[in-house]
């Protein structure tokens, strides 16, 4: 199981213009865990994701997936293990039909066309849009686009899913559907979002980022209720945990569902 572990050690990244986007971050994410990464705009979330995926390379420190260090040479392996769902599905769905899009990854790994087909149909089935396989991406609704983007990553059969704002721009029903879908996955999940209610619902553990540094990490149920911490990081306590706006009564907080065996101390 150790190869599903994702470890970040002393990570530093400075943009060419001198902006220190990531400053000495270290954390470890274990097999089957679901971890939320939250922080205000410009805190360094996107840069961190790019470093995890090997789109950017750190100035100092390292990213280790399983036992493999992320370097230029190991990229093909890393990218098979890690699948990333972009914030804007339009960036991810660049082919003319949903089918071709979901098949893009497997075809690049030179799989047999029969196997490609199996994987595409399976991935589309999991996200529940098998009937849309011949559609053009621009004909899809926001929720369908999101599902297609997730399928395009699932067809690569990754162990770890990295998701950037998976619920952004969705209507409440579509948001629920995507959340239900994410909950059903057994992959290790890393989710960045401003949708703190979603993070509260889906992630056992949360890492809070502020100005390129880790401000706090720990159980979601402890981090998200800490109003002082949240406020200092440009965030706020999820609506579900705030006082009822009508009667002012404090809601009882349900512990988020615990899953996976290893919990970080």
């Amino acid at each position, binding site marked *: 199981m150790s190869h599903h572990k994702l470890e970040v050690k002393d990570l530093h990244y400075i943009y060419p213009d001198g902006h220190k986007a990531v400053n000495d971050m270290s954390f470890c994410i274990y097999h089957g865990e679901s971890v939320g990464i939250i922080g205000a705009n410009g805190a360094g979330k996107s840069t961190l994701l*790019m470093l995890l*995926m090997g*789109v950017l390379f750190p100035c100092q420190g390292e990213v280790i997936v399983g036992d493999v260090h992320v370097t230029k040479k190991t990229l*093909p392996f890393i*990218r*098979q293990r890690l*699948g*990333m769902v*972009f914030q*804007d599905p*339009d*960036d*991810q*769905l*660049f*082919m*003319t*039909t949903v089918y*071709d899009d979901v*098949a*893009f*990854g497997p*075809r*690049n*790994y*030179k799989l047999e*066309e029969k196997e*490609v087909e199996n994987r595409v149909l399976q991935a589309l089935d999991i996200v529940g849009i098998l009937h849309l396989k*011949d*559609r*053009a*991406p*621009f*004909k899809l609704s926001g929720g369908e686009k999101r599902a297609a983007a997730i399928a*395009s*990553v699932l067809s*690569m059969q990754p162990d770890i899913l990295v998701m950037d704002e998976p619920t952004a721009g969705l209507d409440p029903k579509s948001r629920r559907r995507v959340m239900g879908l994410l909950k059903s996955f057994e992959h290790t999940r890393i989710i960045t979002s401003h949708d703190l209610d979603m993070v509260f619902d889906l992630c056992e553990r949360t890492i809070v980022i502020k100005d390129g540094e880790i401000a706090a990490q720990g159980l979601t149920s402890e981090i998200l209720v800490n109003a002082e911490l949240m406020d200092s990081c440009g965030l706020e306590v999820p609506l579900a945990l705030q006082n009822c706006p009508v009667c002012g009564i404090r809601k009882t907080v349900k512990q988020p569902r615990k899953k996976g065996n290893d919990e970080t101390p």
Partner: protein
Amino acid sequence: MSNIINSLYNIRLLDDLARKETAIHKIHPLMKLLTTVVYLTVVVSFGKYEIGSLLPLFFYPVMVFALAELPVKPILLRVLFVAPLIIGIGILNPLFDHQVFYLGGITISRGWVAFFSIFIKCGLTVTAAMLLIATTGMDGLAAALRMLKIPRLFVLQLLLTYRYISVLMEEVARILRAYSLRAPEQKGVHRNAWGSLAGQLILRTFDRAQRVYEAMCLRGFTGEYNTGGYERIRVWDLAYLAGWVSFFAITKIYNIPMFIGSLLTGVVK
């Protein structure tokens, strides 16, 4: 503004039509492409005073319209859209060519004959191109191009352009809406805003291209465009091509309307 909405509507309509499943839609894309090319060549190969022998070529679009169950109106509307341009060039014919002749007791100027010939050719060629895309779709066409050994790089780039037209058009529509709401009674974009308005969009476009590139790399893209296998060409597909090509050849060699006309008038006599 309405321009953009029309264009988007047009692309979506053709994309929808291409996903129908009629006998014509099921024919191999390459055969449809070749049929169209031969058809266009035959249409434009007729001289400038020919109208009669062009008429049998109407059979092709009519058959495709009917067999592929395509709506006639939106496609013909598009043809009318381009017509003014052709009329502009064609209308000069009657001005420059005054020679007249008599047809069934009516005096007709040769220039007008040339004008109508151009007009008919325009209608036929434009319709044929639209019918090709409405029965084949962009992905089918891309497959046909790859079979013709067009470099993958170009095909991929063509598909990407097609894919992002709707994304960028919507973006432009939003920008123009925002502009016009704050600049009432302006016909177009003022000169002061030319560079920044389109320039901002370019910068965003570059960023988007960067993200698309990242999305491609994360799924194993290394500069090579890998596609699935080709659809196999069946005997029926070949028969479709052969059938039409021989029909076009016959219309090219024999003047069919004249034959029918003579037969009728001759028999009547």
